[in-house]
């Protein structure tokens, strides 16, 4: 999936996360994660994010995540929403999103 514009999804409310996605200047994939629970769950958040991006076949883009203690299901949903918006994708393949 190609990131063609800047987009975001989510909020900075407790238990949520804000995901910002934009094209990357150097044409590579860069993931930046900050979290209130970075020490405890930073690795897990990165793992879920990278897995979600891989399933969407995002190979290039800057993905910035500000986590406020979200569950994995919210992380997946917000990343997918931000990427689909950034890719201007209207056609959803639920097998890929699952």
């Amino acid at each position, binding site marked *: 999936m190609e990131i063609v514009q800047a987009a975001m*999804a*989510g*909020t900075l*409310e*407790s*238990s*949520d*996360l804000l995901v910002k996605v934009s094209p990357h200047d150097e044409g590579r994939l860069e993931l930046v994660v900050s979290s209130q629970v970075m020490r405890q769950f930073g690795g897990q958040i990165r793992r879920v994010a990278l897995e979600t991006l891989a399933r969407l076949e995002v190979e290039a883009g800057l993905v910035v995540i500000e986590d406020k203690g*979200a*569950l*994995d*299901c*919210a992380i*997946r*949903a*917000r990343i*997918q*929403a931000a990427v*689909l*918006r950034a890719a201007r994708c209207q056609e*959803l393949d*639920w097998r890929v*999103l*699952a």
Partner: protein
Amino acid sequence: MTLCTLRRSMLFLPASSAAMLSTAFVHRPDSIMFDLEDAVALREKDSARLMMFHALRNPVYRELETVVRINPLATPFGLPDLEAAVRAGADVIRLPKTDTAADLLELEAQVERIEMVCGRPRGSTRLMAAIESASGVVNAVAIAMASPRLMGIALAGFDYVVDMQTERGDGTELFYARCAVLHAARAAKIDAFDVVFGDLDDEAGFIREAELARRLGFNGKSLINPRQIELLHNVYAPTAAEAAHAGKVLAAADAAERDGLGVVSLNGKMIDAPIINRARRVLQLAATSGIRR
């Protein structure tokens, strides 16, 4: 006799709210309703749909009955909502603004198609119709009987009173609609759900309305705040006297069956099947809700 599924409390949960998605199951309502319609802003419909899709696949939501209120199929959001909800394994799809049986048949056909495509067992997705207009109330019987997938119909008070050119008051304004929806549901042997009570600070008013709904025969109410769950379950809990009497009824029925008697009696009064079934339901409620305080 199979005891029926308890559906006293159906908690609305805006699917766009991560905080509520993370905690709603803790409050143990009988059903949780992920709302993709009125509680979600237009520009957040896509994100909320994905939140619902992934939350439903989370094991914490597998122990509760899950309902998804989709947007009307006539909107651009309705069909994607339905695709996501059926594929994610929602137990029930709630169709808002159901005015005719045809609305439900259209939904049924789409659900059947999606079940086939995604490999979900045919018929495993149940439906609920929300009646929110004068047309819906007038057509309630046809709606209630439209599909074998239908597990219940709900009256939605806010849109209904607007359509009737009135406003929420002491309940008089809803009296005909409540009775019409309830009779349609009972005639079709499905459940009936009463309206949301919107004033969270009026606990006494909520209990009064819940008592009315219970006495009329509604299975439960739609709720907008977890604080209302315990209050509602207490309203539906039997009194100590009712539970004690139900225990005696079942003991008498068991004794008569053991002794091979065709007629059951308790304190000189004949007990028939509806009374025995009612006693079983009272004890089921006592086991789940406790005794009314």
